[in-house]
C-alpha cells in the first residue's frame, strides 16, 4: 500500500512535473513561434507620393471657349482623347493623380520580396462636348468618384450633372 501510494504519488509528481514543464514550455514555444513569424513577416509601408498615371491635361479649361473653340482646335492643343462618346459628341481626357503609394516587403525563409503599388489615386477628367457644328458646347474639368462607373459618370455629365458647367 505504501509502495503503491509512493508509486501513485511518484506518478503524480511526475505528471505534475510534466505539467509544470509544459507550463514553462508553452511561452517558450510561443516565443519560438513569434521568432519564426518575425522571420517570415510582411511589412506594409504607405508612402506619400505625387505623380500622374496617364497623360495629364495641363491646359486651362478656361482657355477653351464655348462656342468659339472647335473640335480641331481641341485636338491640336490636347491631342487625341482617351475616350470618345460619339452619340453625345463628348471627348474625355483622363488621368490619375496618385497621392499615396504603398510598398510591401515580404521577408521569408526563402528570401526577401518586394512589391509596390499606387494607393489613393484621384481620377481626373477633362470632358469637352461639341455641338453639331463641332464647336465646344461645354467643357469641364472634374474628378470621377471611385465608386461610380465610367458610363454612368458620363451619362450623368451629359445630362448636366457631375459638376458640369455650361
Amino acid at each position: 500500500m505504501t509502495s503503491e501510494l509512493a508509486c501513485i504519488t511518484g506518478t503524480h509528481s511526475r505528471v505534475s512535473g510534466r505539467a509544470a514543464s509544459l507550463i514553462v514550455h508553452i511561452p517558450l514555444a510561443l516565443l519560438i513561434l513569434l521568432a519564426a513569424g518575425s522571420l517570415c513577416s510582411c511589412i506594409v509601408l504607405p508612402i506619400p507620393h505625387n505623380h500622374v498615371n496617364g497623360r495629364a491635361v495641363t491646359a486651362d479649361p478656361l482657355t477653351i471657349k464655348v462656342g468659339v473653340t472647335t473640335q480641331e482646335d481641341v485636338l491640336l492643343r490636347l491631342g487625341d482623347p482617351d475616350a470618345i462618346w460619339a452619340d453625345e459628341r463628348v471627348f474625355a481626357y483622363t488621368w490619375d493623380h496618385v497621392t499615396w503609394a504603398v510598398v510591401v516587403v515580404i521577408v521569408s525563409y526563402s528570401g526577401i520580396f518586394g512589391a509596390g503599388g499606387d494607393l489613393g489615386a484621384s481620377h481626373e477628367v477633362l470632358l469637352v462636348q461639341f455641338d453639331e457644328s463641332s464647336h465646344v458646347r461645354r467643357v469641364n474639368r472634374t474628378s470621377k468618384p471611385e465608386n461610380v462607373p465610367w458610363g454612368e459618370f458620363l451619362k450623368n455629365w451629359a445630362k448636366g450633372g457631375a459638376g458640369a458647367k455650361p
Partner: protein
Amino acid sequence: MPSLRLRRNGIAWPLLCLVLVACATHGEVAAMPQELSAVAARGTAAVLIRFDGVDENGGPLRPFVGKLAPSYLAFSIGDSDSGGVPLKGVRPGYFSGMGVSQYHARFLSKESRDEGWIALFLPPGYYYLALTEIYYVGVPQWRLEVPSGIPAIYAGTFYLSGETSPDFWWGGRYVSALNQDATQIRDESDLAVKVARRDLSSLPPPVTRLVKRHSGPYLIGIPPAAAN
C-alpha cells in the same frame, strides 16, 4: 466524438460527391433562359467567338477541349463602365462570370466547346477584348461592336499561336502562353452559321461583325448598325 465525425462525414461526402458530379456532368453551362429571352427582347445580342490556333509543335491549339471545369484561356473585357479599358476578367466555362465581371462566356454545348466556340450575351455597345485575364498595358486589344437590333453576331475567330503545358489537375494540356502579336482574326462566317443553327436555334443566323485591332481613343456609346 465518433458520432460527430460520422455527422461531419455524412454531410461532407455527399456534398463533395455532388459538387464533383456537377462539375463532371456540367462542365459547361449552356446559355441561360434569361439570356436567350433578353436576346429575344432585343436587349442584348448573342456574340459568337471562336478560338483556334497552333501550338509550339505546329499542332492544333484546342483551348477548351476536354476541360471539365475552368478554362485556362481567359480574357478581359472593357466596356463603357470601365471607360473602355479591359478590366473585367472573363474565364469561359464553368466558372465564367464568377469574378469581378458580370459577363458570362458560355460554352453552348460540348461540341461547340471542343471546337473552341464561346458565346457572350452583350447589350449594344463597344467592347474591348484583351487575351489576358488581368489586363496590362501593351497587350493588343480588339474592338468588338455590338449594334442595336442584331440578335446574333459572329465576331470572328481568334487564331492563336501559343505554347501548351501538361495539365496535372484536369488532364491533357492547357494553353500556358500566347504569342499576343501573332494573333490573327479569321472569318469563318459559314461555320458560325452552322454552330448557331445547332446551338442557338431560337435565334436568326448571326451577322458577321469581325473584331478589329484597337488603337487610339476608346469609343463609347452605341455603334452604328452598318459596319464601318
